[in-house]
């Protein structure tokens, strides 16, 4: 029955977006059955590719009127299934909307469409000496609209912050199909900070159609340093000492022996042979500051027991150092037929404890775990390796992966630092939050999407019923009565 309702939408959607931009062919629809989390698949009933904000609003309004659920998709690189389609719903693909509308260098702002890829913002800003700071590993392909939905981070968010710190305005289509702005681009909040609440809501509060981002001046100098250690705990000591010295590097990344082995196999990154861990520290800023910091960092790395230190101060050398780290996720494919990318967070000072726990879990289960992590902010990306041809291994890997999250929570951490909850981790939400916490978060959902049609089934394990809220306003403010102002 639902299918007939959706089929009934097709003529209207073709009218809105043009016949070529409404996909109904089952084979073509298969293209969209999953995002970067390939373990969850679901073919949408139909997919539509709007070309403008107005078209997006009209598509959403049509879905809302028909009571059909809809899911937005950017480049489909998400790792938590946030853009997983619904078989009974419409997938709204934002990839046609990829214009950089305006760059205002004096105000350090850019206005872009949601399908614009992350890296292309920095490329467009570079001639003005500016860049867009959030840099998720997928930045060559991932869309900024998707970054807004996930509040994406990246290696450099330790110093420069997350997407939410760099977005100053959003034009959205509400789940009812209306276009509205949240924030005016200034970065100054007027009224409730809906811009902040929307960013990172994983596509459940509406669809972004324009984004105003903050641009930052390109740093005067960037220095990257690679230090090799016998163990991750020695590397961890260097991290603590650097932070303890009052230095906030642009990035501090660590890889363990297994992930180095994988990177070596994949991209021949030529990291120091036999290293049990490599640490990558990047410093950026004014030359006069960075030179002094670099000397301090180098000596702290040595003091912690570095067996070798390499430094890079030009883009080509930096790329060599980063090559292994940036390839790490894909690289484990070289040493394992299948793997789970985990994303947990612990207070940085608990890294040693949790790494020891992961090693124990791995030893107990016989499941190998390669560790790649943003050491500066305690964000772990354990890669849990398994062979799906071996019966029971996938389940065992899932179990280890879940136990790693438990270990993160025991240390006061989080079940996700940057990949999002999506469909993948909604079942872990009750471990991190109480029923009242989740209920209260969903008040926001009820305000934006009382009909629960916008990316339903994501983030929260149990949807909240949004009953009609009875109006209990007492005597209105005189200005409200006069139609001049609204009182919150």
């Amino acid at each position: 029955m639902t299918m007939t309702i959706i089929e009934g939408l097709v003529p209207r959607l073709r009218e809105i977006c043009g016949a070529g931009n409404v996909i109904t062919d089952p084979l073509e629809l298969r293209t969209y059955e999953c995002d970067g989390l390939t373990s969850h698949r679901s073919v949408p009933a139909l997919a539509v590719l709007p070309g403008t904000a107005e078209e997006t609003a009209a598509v959403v309004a049509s879905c809302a009127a028909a009571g059909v659920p809809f899911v937005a998709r950017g480049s489909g690189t998400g790792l938590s299934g946030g853009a997983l389609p619904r078989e009974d719903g419409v997938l709204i693909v934002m990839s046609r909307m990829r214009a950089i509308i305006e760059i205002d260098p004096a105000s350090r702002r850019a206005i872009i469409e949601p399908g614009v890829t992350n890296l292309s913002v920095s490329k467009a800003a570079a001639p003005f000496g500016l860049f867009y700071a959030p840099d998720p590993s997928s930045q060559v392909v991932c869309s900024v609209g998707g970054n807004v939905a996930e509040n994406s981070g990246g290696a450099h968010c330790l110093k420069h912050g997350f997407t939410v710190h760099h977005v100053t305005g959003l034009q959205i289509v509400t789940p009812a199909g209306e276009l509205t702005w949240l924030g005016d681009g200034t970065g100054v909040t007027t009224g409730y900070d809906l811009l902040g609440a929307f960013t990172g809501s994983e596509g459940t509060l509406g669809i972004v159609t324009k984004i105003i981002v903050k641009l930052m001046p390109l740093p005067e100098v960037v220095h990257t340093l690679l230090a090799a250690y016998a163990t991750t705990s020695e590397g961890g000591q260097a991290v603590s000492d650097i932070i303890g010295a009052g230095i906030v590097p642009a990035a501090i990344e660590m890889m363990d022996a297994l992930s180095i082995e994988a990177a070596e196999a994949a991209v021949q990154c030529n990291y120091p042979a036999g290293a049990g861990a490599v640490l990558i520290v990047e410093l950026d800023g004014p030359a006069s500051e960075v030179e002094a910091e670099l000397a301090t960092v180098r000596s702290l790395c040595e003091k912690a027991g570095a067996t070798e230190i390499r430094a890079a101060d030009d883009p080509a050398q930096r790329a060599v150092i980063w090559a292994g780290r940036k390839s790490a996720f894909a690289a484990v494919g070289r040493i394992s037929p299948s793997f789970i990318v985990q994303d947990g967070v612990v207070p940085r000072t608990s890294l040693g404890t949790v790494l020891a726990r992961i090693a124990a879990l791995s030893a107990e289960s016989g499941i190998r775990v390669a560790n790649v992590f943003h050491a500066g902010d305690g964000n772990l990306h354990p890669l849990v390796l398994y062979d799906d041809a071996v019966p029971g291994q996938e389940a065992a890997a899932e179990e280890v992966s879940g136990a790693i999250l438990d270990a993160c929570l025991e240390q006061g951490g989080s079940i996700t630092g940057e990949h999002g909850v999506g469909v993948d981790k909604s079942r872990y939400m009750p471990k991190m939050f109480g029923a009242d916490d989740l209920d209260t978060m969903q008040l926001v959902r009820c305000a934006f999407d009382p009909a629960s049609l916008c990316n339903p089934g994501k983030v929260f394990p149990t949807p909240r019923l949004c009953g009609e809220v009875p109006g209990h306003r007492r005597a209105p403010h005189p200005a409200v009565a006069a139609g001049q102002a609204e009182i919150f």
Partner: protein
Amino acid sequence: MSTERTVAPAAGAALAAACPALREGSGPDAIAGVRPAFVASPASTDEASALLRAAAGHGLTVVPRGAGTGLGWGTPPASCDLVVDMSLMDGILEHAAGDLVARIQAGASIGKVASVLATAGQQLALDVPPDATVGGVVATGTAGPRRFRYGAPRDLLIGITVVRADGVVARSGGKVVKNVAGYDLGKLFSGSQGTLGLITEATFRLHPLPASVAWVTGEFGPSDLAGVTSAVASAAGSALVPSAVELEWTGGPRSPAGPRVGVLLEGSRAGVPERARQMAELLASAGATPTTAVSEVLFRWWQPVPEAGAPGTVVRISYWVRELGEVLDALSTAAAGAGVLPTVGGPAGAGMVYARLDPGTEPDSATRFVCGLRDRLDGARGSVVVLAAPPPVMAAAGAYGPVPGAALMRAIKDQFDPDHRMAPGRLTGGS
């Protein structure tokens, strides 16, 4: 704007049962002239929860209070049966120095927090009055000059505990800086002025205290608004990484003295002097004379904010930095048109300046000034918000002009506080 409401004796008994530190409201408890029937001082989140549950049971209106430094802001509450005073919840619950994180009760003062964090060479990077409380600062969204680099409270807040209007306790975020699990209620409560619920605890990301600081200042001629705009934009966009880019125009647009631009540099003892020298050159090349580098704290922007009870008018103008010249020109025109003498200043590089009118300003003139600004800047990207003003000015001008997303804001209010009992009328907005 309401007169005092009568609260049933049974309500008082219920409140006292929930929260032993309960007393009747007196004159000094009045918020913008509205005197509460009761003042309760909960000692814990649990007690605050019981208190708000009791208040909900009796339909009481509630206004949270920190140190009261920001209570003169906003419109007066339409009604206030109960003030929730947070002074007993003033603990620093956790300072994880190695993680650069602190978990703090809402009633703790910024000054106390600063002194505790300083022992580890760390800071909560918000320039706000030391008397203000953590909860008050979050609820008002207040930040000073260094918002240019570190942002507002919403940008440093990584976890929050709140008590809803119905007494339910809710948390979001956590105590790790990097965390995207669940909706971020901290963002929503930042700047919500007590209208969505009571903040009882906040967890912040901290920063190391800099080893060295310097302010570099440059003065401009009174008519050189283009020079000021260029200096602010260049400083803000420079790779010298300023922590603050402030504008100070003490006499305002109608004074013969020109504006002054001040840039704060923070960093190492080795690095700051060289950056200060380069910044002085940059300001000079935009037409500033003379430039100086000093290390003392300048631009204590909060001092001119009027006391609650005898408020002058404080207007906040936000804009895209490229439009600063247009904003300053609009201030001149509106001041001349209204015959007022505003003092202008604020974190101009972060797209914000304040204009202040003396408490002695005629209400009609203050209203004309605000309306003149709005007329002139209408259609520009930004807003003109009246943060504080005598009631007649607030009533005539309204705190806000049009606010994007106002319909969604109303929906949020209706969800969190369906009876509109939390700080009713404190946040007003256009359609």
